[in-house]
């Protein structure tokens, strides 16, 4: 019993260590004071008002959402296609190809940022939202590939054969059998892609221009220039927009996983 008690205490401590820094920011965002303060001495929605009305912050939010949505569409489409392709390769080739596709996870972001920056100079994609979205797609792609591949590997290959033996052509098999069964993987891949893009800061910093500041870049800039408590409201919005989709993905994954396993 004692061991259990210790285990509980350690678990709670670790949990707090992981979440408190994030959670502290939320009460701070409702503070009425003009500086960072914890615990807040009074309550106010002024920072939220500023976040959504000041041109700099609201543009940053809009930019971030645009980039994240484009990234989600690109990365999900390409990543799903890549996972389907990988699934058909012989194990040896698949290993190598998977390594290439997952490399953005391992390669330091700063390195990727430098290379993309110099490449985009020639393509004049620097300082454009689509440029940032393309760069984010490279970072988000591995997560989609991993999520969809996991799903495909759990799928009985005979299902596709059964489909074609029953008269379904390759496209029909994909649309009616492979895609519906891979959908939970595709959805969680899409959510991961969205989140990856939404809180990405290094590439967005490199590729920024005054009109293409994303929310994380705006936050970064705002701390370096001045102490603006609006950042705590921005952080809270960020936490919400990142954690809700992920929790949602886990719920979807758990439920679909049960139904699709048979």
């Amino acid at each position, binding site marked *: 019993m004692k061991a259990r008690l210790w285990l509980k205490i350690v678990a709670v401590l670790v949990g707090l260590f992981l979440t408190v820094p994030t959670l502290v920011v939320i009460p701070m965002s409702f503070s009425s004071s003009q500086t960072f303060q914890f615990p807040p001495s009074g309550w106010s929605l002024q920072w939220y008002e500023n976040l959504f009305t000041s041109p700099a912050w609201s543009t940053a939010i809009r930019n971030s959402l645009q980039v994240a949505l484009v990234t989600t569409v690109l990365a999900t489409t390409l990543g799903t296609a890549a996972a389907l392709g990988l699934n058909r390769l012989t194990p040896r080739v698949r290993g190598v190809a998977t390594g290439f596709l997952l490399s953005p996870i391992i390669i330091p972001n700063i390195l990727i940022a430098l290379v993309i920056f110099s490449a985009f100079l020639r393509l004049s994609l620097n300082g454009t939202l689509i440029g940032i979205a393309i760069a984010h797609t490279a970072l988000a792609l591995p997560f989609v590939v991993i999520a969809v591949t996991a799903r495909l590997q759990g799928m009985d290959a005979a299902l596709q054969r059964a489909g074609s033996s029953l*008269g379904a052509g390759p496209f029909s098999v994909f649309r009616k059998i492979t895609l519906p069964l891979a959908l939970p993987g595709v959805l969680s891949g899409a959510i991961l892609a969205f989140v990856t893009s939404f809180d990405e800061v290094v590439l967005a910093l490199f590729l920024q221009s005054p009109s293409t500041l994303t929310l994380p870049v705006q936050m970064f800039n705002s701390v370096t220039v001045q102490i603006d408590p609006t950042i705590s409201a921005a952080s809270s919005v960020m936490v919400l927009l990142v954690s809700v989709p992920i929790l949602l993905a886990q719920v979807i994954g758990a439920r679909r996983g049960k139904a699709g396993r048979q």
Partner: protein
Amino acid sequence: MTTGDGRIELVDLCKRYGSGPLVVDHVNIDIAPGEFLTLLGPSGSGKTTTLNMIAGFTDITSGAIRLGGSDVAPLPPHRRDFGMVFQNYALFPHMTVAQNVAFPLRERKVPKPEIARRVEETLRLVDLAGMGGRRPHELSGGQQQRVALARAVVFSPSVLLLDEPLSALDRKLRQSLQQEIKRLHQELKLTFVFVTHDQDEAMSLSDRIAVFNAGRVERIGTPAELYRDPGTRFVAGFLGESNLFTGRLRPGGVYEWAGHKWAVRDADGVPAERDLVVRPERLRLAAAPADVPEDANSVQAKVTGLYFQGTHLRAELDYGDGTTGCAVLPPDSVTGIAAGSGVTAYWRPEHQVLVTPPADPHPNEENA
């Protein structure tokens, strides 16, 4: 899409992966419309590869696959119009039973009311009426395989391919599904091509069995023919049990094994290199050599085990020289014999059969 008359001809069918050996080696089988043909063999013998080539999942290396006279080898699987049943059922988990069975009809753009009618009719055929709304994972293994059967025949294909459909089921269920498959075959009058490694299954279901060994059809015939006259040692060993003696055929109709001389009928022109096979139920045991009938062939044996099995008595025999076998006897026929005792085993010459021993490793072209 016409389905022809269900006649399948495999003509010099070969399969080779890369530059490896032939895994299917000049297979020639002519399957009659409505026939139940079983491809039987150990794993790696090429039977499944052959089925996959018929289904279109595996490209052929050379040869031809004809359905009702026309070559289907260039057609993709979804154009061949063969029903197929898989080992692990391969039901679509995201569809209900009815949707699974309706799938091939939807792909063929059958009008909706007719789909509903035929799905219901086919589910009734496999004894699953009223189960249409269930999901596959809510059904037992046997029920799932029946859904798979329904799905594979609902669009009236002329041929049904079955890839070890019973091997994932337990023994009892397997027997009831065997009967189910047999009944479906009789009712639907389709050509069935059935792959299995289970000899009992093959014997009880098939009109004819093609025994595969190392990529070739070693022998093809009705179960009774193959059992009575297996032709090769491999078939004798694979189909049923046997007492197998590797001796030599001498001129004048005498078979010689370990000092024994046995009479052989119709031995003219038969090569000397032959094994002699006696099936267990043809063997009789005598406690004393004097009890052996005069015109019977006999051999001394030691009884290593004696098992009463209700309908029959089974005796495990050791003939010495590393040769063992068994006899299946009527339960009350044995007196004065116990495990460990020496006996004389005997049989009538017409109940023995000569088979070809395995050939030496030889080039593939020989049998082409």
